[in-house]
């Protein structure tokens, strides 16, 4: 099923070419102004609609997945993070889940060998966790660094982050670590999809497309910074124009930048309709964000409705004679 990854790969190339050539053909205003505005709008509206859609659904039962000892008797040591019974415990659990991917950290790999012992061997599988964490944090740093293009003066925090990101002080312009880590981690995640038979089998085009898109964004961005040397002053004039709602299209911004910007726009617009919404979903997942205290505090189901049950009276009516004969107590003797 090569088309599962070839079509997304081709799509990303074509999208880049469309913007690259389009901007050259005098459509700079379209790719530099119209598309970014529409993309951000689609992102914001789409994200809000999706999250509102989730929150509109009820949470009828409190069903956390418990991953440690419950709180029960006072002398039994509870695991307050993996099996929290208070909201502060849940807060820590969610913090670790969101910022440290705690569940993924547990990952193991199973191997079965058909031999005398026929054992299934589980080994700790940390690479997915490392790559996922590296990918997400590098991405975050890249996004935050880009605030340089949307603020004047550039806030100290952004400058500090840049300094930190460029701490290795290699090359000129200085190498950003995130510029290495992000594509490397993305390539690892891609390689997993292509070469791990199980992951390949479960992967869809919609799993490859965002990876290619992000790799395309990274490639064009890195290329502009280190190799082709675009007109940064012109670009900043344009990006400032976008955030101040007085858009301008300065001359001399290369097609490469429009390609970069277009791929970013596509990512924004695509985000809410895709699996990338795990960004929002992770906060709302009821198996993680609820306290395991259902027996201590009643949870209310907003749509709880009455159901027909087989009452004791019906039961006794059915079995009365047999019950009396067996010496079982009954409510009505006759």
């Amino acid at each position, binding site marked *: 099923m090569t088309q599962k990854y070839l079509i997304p790969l081709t799509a990303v190339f074509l999208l880049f070419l469309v913007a690259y050539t389009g901007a050259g053909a005098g459509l700079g205003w379209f790719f530099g102004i119209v598309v970014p505005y529409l993309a951000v709008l689609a992102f914001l509206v789409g994200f809000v609609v999706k999250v509102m859609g989730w929150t509109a659904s009820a949470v009828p039962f409190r069903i956390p997945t418990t991953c440690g000892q419950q709180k029960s*008797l006072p002398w039994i040591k509870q695991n307050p993070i993996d099996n929290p019974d208070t909201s502060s415990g849940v807060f820590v659990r969610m913090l670790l889940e969101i910022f440290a991917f705690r569940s993924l950290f547990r990952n193991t790999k*199973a191997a079965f060998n058909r031999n005398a012992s026929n054992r299934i061997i589980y080994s700790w599988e940390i690479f997915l966790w490392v790559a996922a964490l590296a990918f997400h944090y590098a991405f975050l740093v890249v996004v935050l660094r880009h605030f340089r293009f949307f603020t004047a003066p550039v806030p100290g925090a952004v400058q500090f982050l840049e300094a930190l990101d460029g701490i290795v002080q290699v090359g000129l312009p200085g190498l950003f670590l995130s510029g290495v880590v992000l594509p490397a981690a993305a390539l690892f995640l891609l390689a997993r999809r292509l070469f791990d038979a199980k992951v390949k*089998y479960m992967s869809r085009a919609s799993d490859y497309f965002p990876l290619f898109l992000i790799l395309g964004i990274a490639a064009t961005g890195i290329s502009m910074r280190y190799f082709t040397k675009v007109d940064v002053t012109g670009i900043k004039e344009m990006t400032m124009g976008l955030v101040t709602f007085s858009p301008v299209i300065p001359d001399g911004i290369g097609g490469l930048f429009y390609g970069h910007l277009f791929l970013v726009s596509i990512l924004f617009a695509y985000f809410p309709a895709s699996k990338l919404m795990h960004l929002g979903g992770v906060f709302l997942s009821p*198996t993680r964000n609820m306290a395991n205290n259902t*027996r201590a505090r009643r949870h209310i189901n907003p749509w709880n409705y009455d159901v027909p049950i087989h009452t004791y009276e019906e039961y006794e009516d059915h079995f009365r004679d047999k019950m009396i004969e067996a010496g079982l107590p009954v409510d009505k003797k006759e």
Partner: protein
Amino acid sequence: MADEITPDELLDKIDYGTPSGDWMDTTKSVQIRPGMYCYAAKAESVETLGLPNARPWNPVEDDWKLPDDWQQILHEGIKERLERFRTFKIFMDVCVRCGACADKCHFFLGTGDPKNMPVLRSELLRSVYRNDFTTAGKILQKIPGGQRLGGNRPLTLDALKEMWYYFFQCTECRRCSVFCPYGIDTAEITIMARELFNLIGLNIDWIATPVSNCYQTGNHLGIQPHAFKDMLEFFVEDIEDITGVDCTPNFQKKGADILFITPSGDVFADPGTYTCQGYLILFQYLKEKYGLDVTWSTYASEGGNFGFFTSHETMKRLNAKMYAEAKRLGVKWILGGECGHMWRVIHQYMDTMNGPADFLEVPVNPITGTRFDNAASTKMVHITEFTADLIKHGKLELDKSRNANRIMTFHDSCNPARGMGLLDEPRYVINNVCDNFYEMPPNTIRENTFCCGSGAGLNAGENMELRMAGALPRATALKFVHEKFGVNTLGTICAIDRAALSTLCEYWVPDVEVAGIHELVGNALILPGEKERTEDLRMEPLPGCEEEE
């Protein structure tokens, strides 16, 4: 079916390698294979509760006798559940197919069938969701090749049959959910899928008939009130033979302190029966020593709830009896026996569904004074919490040496482990009634525990190949401690386990026996006025008494 496939043949089949190509192309070729599926629900069992489309049907026949508008029913059913369950909606939307869950499922590990990877099991339904319920899916439908590219598909009869086959190969154990970075719980998706199947009459008989029995007669096995009493009295006779003490229980006693509810499986089949005798001994001890009055009920004579494997509504209908009977009898609170899914239902659902239990008191152990604040609202306490508390306070006189022949390990049942977190209470009890306890490897216990392979209503006879394949990860871990430490007894706090693990042991690790924790308690507990015991509850000689045989 276990007679047909040997352990070696089963092991030969395992291959974690994955076929090339697209799983969606294989939907048409899915064969509902004997040994891997359970028989269809009998019409009369479906009728008892007035559930839809009761009729005789057979999964291996082409015509499933579905209503004409089955697609419409399922479409409406999915829509309704997306609104009612945030879990369902989020789990349909956010999976990134990272594969962390893939090799966490005992059915995948035992069969190597890629559709038993939790992610693909869910994708079976998710692909339909994407097609019919998302904007992107609706747009892609209109583009040639778009559906394929998006991994979306319409709800065809083939897709339905594939879903049915694989959602009845999930035991709702939640192990995958532990590893999912978004907490996606395949159990929840399976619960939804089975609810949907029930809308068009596609339950399996091993669930539908117990549900029908439980509703009408009070328990899954359909034991009628007089027979239920007889069976317990039969145990009483056995116990009297062994201990010389009469442990006759109360039935439906109004004004008793505590109502005790346990799965009917323990009244019916070995080795659960020994656990049941353990309860009787414990209650007799507490009555004699401390005047605690416990009653059983033939009306609420089922702790388990196969309604949970049918639909939320059916679960509620069966569960309602517990509170109803506690109210009628006027007890202070409820004590629950050793059972797996029963405790998930009690812990995470009961109070919400059928509460508030404002006619009961916050459970207090009158003997120790311990207030069970963790059960302050639901007002139901797990027997190992109760017994652990008694032991901790030195209220039980125990003779560990009577279990000296038991070299124990403990199987955490899925639901108490991952739907509750009841991990150390049973271990505490075991360590106080028995000297030899060894844990299985850490990846296979506590929250990482492996299912017995027969939970969630799949403990039938006709799907034995599936069950034994699903049992493999548990069995290999057990075999490891059996060989390394000489473990000969697998302790458990689940009635389905007591049945299923016995079959597992017979098939995979023949020298290991299965025992409920309260069987060991029953052996160790020194009853006031008992004669010198020479036999354990299985009527086998106690350690040191062998020569007297």
